[in-house]
């Protein structure tokens, strides 16, 4: 990927800021998401909650199904490939996906290596639990980061933990003397330049969204107040009683994330939320995939 292409890919993520990216499995759901104000959709065959329920190996979605969604909406369409599965990524690039999510939600294809994302022209978003993971993914060519959270649970605790950890580590880097950054880079296993960027700018070099466990407008606003620049909602919308209404409420809560009065009224009569599961109740921690 040329430096110019990488810039353009980072810049697309900038355009998504302050927005909500929603998981959809059909063109109809994609249209509901777009009409509710989603700034992008993630096309996948099964949402994380169902992947979790079904078990087994989960892979990239059928390209035909992804194309159907690309044709249904005008907003950017993202799709997931397995961690390390660069051929799935090549396929997604061939169908001109707008963003590839190299995602721990699918079964990892490689337990050592992530995809060398610098080899691609399409942009990549990757999950991270802490600053080291985020910067390693960026060094590999990711142009957007999201917290991993714990997908398909409707439990926000892990996304909160990941966002707080990242902020704490950024604050720690910011407070260091310049000569201490070399050791920090070694600890984090990332290039010195990236650590230097974080110190100078007090933020990641790319846009950082929250993901995993967002089920309510209040969850989305919580993540925004904790410093997320936008929100992914996976199972939370189409596993709920009234997807259109909930989607639109989450979109508004992300825009006005500090207005508790407004969020109170947005939270009324949303119908049933997705049934959540606590992290102690699940056997598979997706966030532990790919570090």
């Amino acid at each position, binding site marked *: 990927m040329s430096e110019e292409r990488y810039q353009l*890919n980072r810049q697309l993520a*900038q*355009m998504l*800021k302050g*927005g909500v990216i929603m998981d959809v499995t059909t063109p109809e759901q994609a249209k509901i998401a777009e009409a509710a104000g989603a700034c992008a959709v993630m096309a996948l065959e099964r949402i994380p909650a169902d992947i979790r329920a079904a078990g087994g190996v989960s892979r990239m979605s059928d390209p035909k199904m992804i194309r159907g969604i690309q044709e249904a909406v005008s907003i950017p369409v993202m799709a997931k490939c397995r961690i390390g599965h660069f051929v799935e990524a090549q396929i997604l690039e061939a169908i*001109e996906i707008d963003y590839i999510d190299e995602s721990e939600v699918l079964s990892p294809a490689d337990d050592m290596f992530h995809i060398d994302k610098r080899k691609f022209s399409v942009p990549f978003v990757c999950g991270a639990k802490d600053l080291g993971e985020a910067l390693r993914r960026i060094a590999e060519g990711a142009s957007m980061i999201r917290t991993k959270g714990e997908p398909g649970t409707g439990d926000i605790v892990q996304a909160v933990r990941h966002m707080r950890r990242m902020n704490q580590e950024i604050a720690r880097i910011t407070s260091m003397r310049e000569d201490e950054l070399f050791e920090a880079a070694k600890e984090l296993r990332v290039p010195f330049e990236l650590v230097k960027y974080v110190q100078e700018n007090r933020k990641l070099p790319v846009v950082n969204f929250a993901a995993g466990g967002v089920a309510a407008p209040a969850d989305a606003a919580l993540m925004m107040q904790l410093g997320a620049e936008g929100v992914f909602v996976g199972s939370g919308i189409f596993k709920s009683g009234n997807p259109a209404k909930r989607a639109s409420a989450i*979109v508004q809560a992300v*825009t006005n994330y500090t207005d508790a009065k407004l969020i109170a009224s947005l939270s009324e009569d949303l119908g049933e939320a997705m049934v959540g599961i606590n992290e102690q109740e699940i056997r598979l921690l997706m966030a532990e995939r790919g570090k």
Partner: protein
Amino acid sequence: MKIAVLALQGAFYEQEKVIRELGAECLELRQPKDLSKTFDGLILPGGESTAQGKLLRELNMFEPLREMIRGGLPVLATCAGLILLAEKSSNDDRSWFQTLPVTVRRNAYGRQLGSFHTVQNFGDMKDIPMTFIRAPYIEKAEKDVEILARVDGNIVGVRCRNQLALSFHPELDSDRRIHRMFLENIR
């Protein structure tokens, strides 16, 4: 001087940074009550026009803002902002303020792989860097619209009365001439 930036979704922070850098004040428009503050100009930033348009209507900001634009409030619109201002679109039924008599083509360069950077003249300004991100262009401009820039023959920058509208994102490059021109015309 105070510039209001529509801050519902998208790259509004980037615009605010440029405006402050050029010595003007900034305020964010997120709710109807923000519209009662006084400001001298408006920026409609990049982002997703469908998301921004939906929020404008839902938050009851659409009508009052349209009245302000019709009433002559100076506007700088980039990318999604251009789509919000356009009278109509050749490949989409949706339209919003309809204060700018042009026909836009949404996602005119295709998907993200079609995004690009170039350098072109803009009005009488030479060599303006232009970043196009899943950008629209203008297919047709009515008579009273002044065409300021074309890329490969397609219209990417226009002015019409109080509205300055662009397909690209000057806020993403370091050249400040377009924003300066916008601010100078307000003064």
